[in-house]
């Protein structure tokens, strides 16, 4: 199976999500000078996560997160870090835009989202959209903050 087919395979995608939940990437906050943080707890009474971002020379050097969160929040935030590290702010914003298009069940560019296409069916369960977007919303705010600093 090629990579494209794998991203259409339900079992593969489910395993990906479970893997990111059990062994999240970019997990655990760090105390570093370059990092800015966003705590997200106001939108739901359940997930409570903090996302950190380190940008240097317009490039995302690191993304970290931690908190109490469901499988969907944890895995979607974990994948987000993988996708965004090493990208420029402009590239990151484009990826985030595509992700939100997918979550809202609009046309989107699957190639840009790689593993994160695992969340393409979340729109069918409206009550879980906030789980799949909580980390991404935090990142949006952090990037805006970085832009404002310019």
């Amino acid at each position: 199976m090629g990579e494209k087919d794998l991203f259409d395979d339900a079992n593969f995608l489910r395993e990906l999500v479970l893997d990111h939940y059990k062994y999240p990437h970019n997990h655990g906050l760090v105390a570093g000078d370059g990092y800015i943080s966003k705590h997200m707890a106001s939108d739901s009474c359940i997930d409570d996560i903090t996302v950190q971002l380190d940008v240097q020379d317009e490039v995302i050097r690191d993304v970290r997160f931690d908190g109490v969160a469901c499988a969907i929040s944890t895995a979607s935030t974990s994948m987000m870090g993988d996708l965004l590290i090493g990208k420029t702010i402009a590239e990151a914003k484009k990826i985030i835009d595509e992700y939100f298009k997918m979550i809202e069940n609009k046309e989107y560019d699957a190639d840009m989202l790689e593993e994160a296409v695992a969340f393409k069916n979340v729109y069918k369960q409206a009550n879980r959209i906030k789980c799949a977007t909580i980390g991404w919303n935090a990142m949006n705010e952090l990037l805006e903050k970085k832009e404002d600093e310019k």
Partner: protein
Amino acid sequence: MYDVEKIRQDFPMITNHPELIYFDNGATTYKPKKVIDAVNSFYTDFTSNVERGDYETAIKADKAYDHTREVIGRLINCDSREVAFFSNITSALNQVVYGLSKLFKKGDTVLLTQAEHASNLLPWFRLKEEQGINIAYIPLDKQGRIDLSDFEKCIDETVKAVSVAYVTNVLGSVQPLKEMISICQKHGILSVVDAAQAIGHRKVDVKDLGCDFLCFSSHKMCGPDGAGVMYGRYELIKDMPPLLLGGGMNARFNNDGTIIYKDAPQRFEAGTPNIEGVIGLSAAAEYLMDIGLDSIHEHELKLRAYLLDKMLKLDNIEIYNPDDISGPLTFNVKDVFAQDAAGYLAVNNVCVRSGNHCAKILHNIIGTDQSIRASLYLYNTEAEADRFAELVSKIDLNSAVGIFF
């Protein structure tokens, strides 16, 4: 003879949605047709404001609105002038705390528990912030229950009030209120009862309990949203300052700024009230009293024991309140985050609540932030309990995440 199938026919949400298992009664309850009809009749037959009209429909609305005080008086065994209407229990409790704040001075103590709902904590927190009162927590066991001897140890000369839930909203612990209040009375301590999870589920008798205040919401007892009740012993509320000021609650006011309030309970009901809600509330109370609160309670106890028995046989869950005999069943599926498990139940047409249930400091007691709460009511059945337990037995991380694929 309690006929649950006949009762189910009274609820349009059940007949319209036979596929749903509604086990989220701790959050809100379904409404019987009698309540919906009562609300409808206000809008289709006698719409008008209350306490100010001179014409026939206004008089009818007035009568229906005030009649609810008498019906609630029968429901909780008090005088109709001891019943004040609010928009929900939250606003009623805020009035109680505001009213009592005038009696409190710096260093006075209120006793609460860590199992309280936010609405019975945050108003007191503000009083601590603004007036320097102390807040002390009555110890709870692992299942959220108060032991009377522990309670007595909390009492000293600074304690002025005790404010606790009759039945707590997460674990369903039934506190020994009558005994606690009798201890309070000996020491001249005021008692406030959050009856949100007790009302409509069992007989609640304010005279028997001996409490000074007792509050509840209409929507948790088959009534409409947006209506709540404050019971206050009349000698305590007759001079109590109202939280909200405006129309409907004053007798006179003058250009020098003096206001003369109406007598209680009208002094607490500023502005046009939720007339439809209050009228629907009396229909709900009558509906429940017609079936009989003792019968409803007995049905719930039996059904809870039945469900608990099924759930205890499952080895993939942890139950936090297995020794309680009433109230919700609160549990987690091992290794599955509460919301993920609730998501699996949701796609299988089961309605439960996951999260911290507005009791954000309770985790200190039960050792978990998040849980799933299955709360039953008069219309739930053993067949639903069977299907529920079977679905819960199928939950693991794979099936919970699998709903997205």
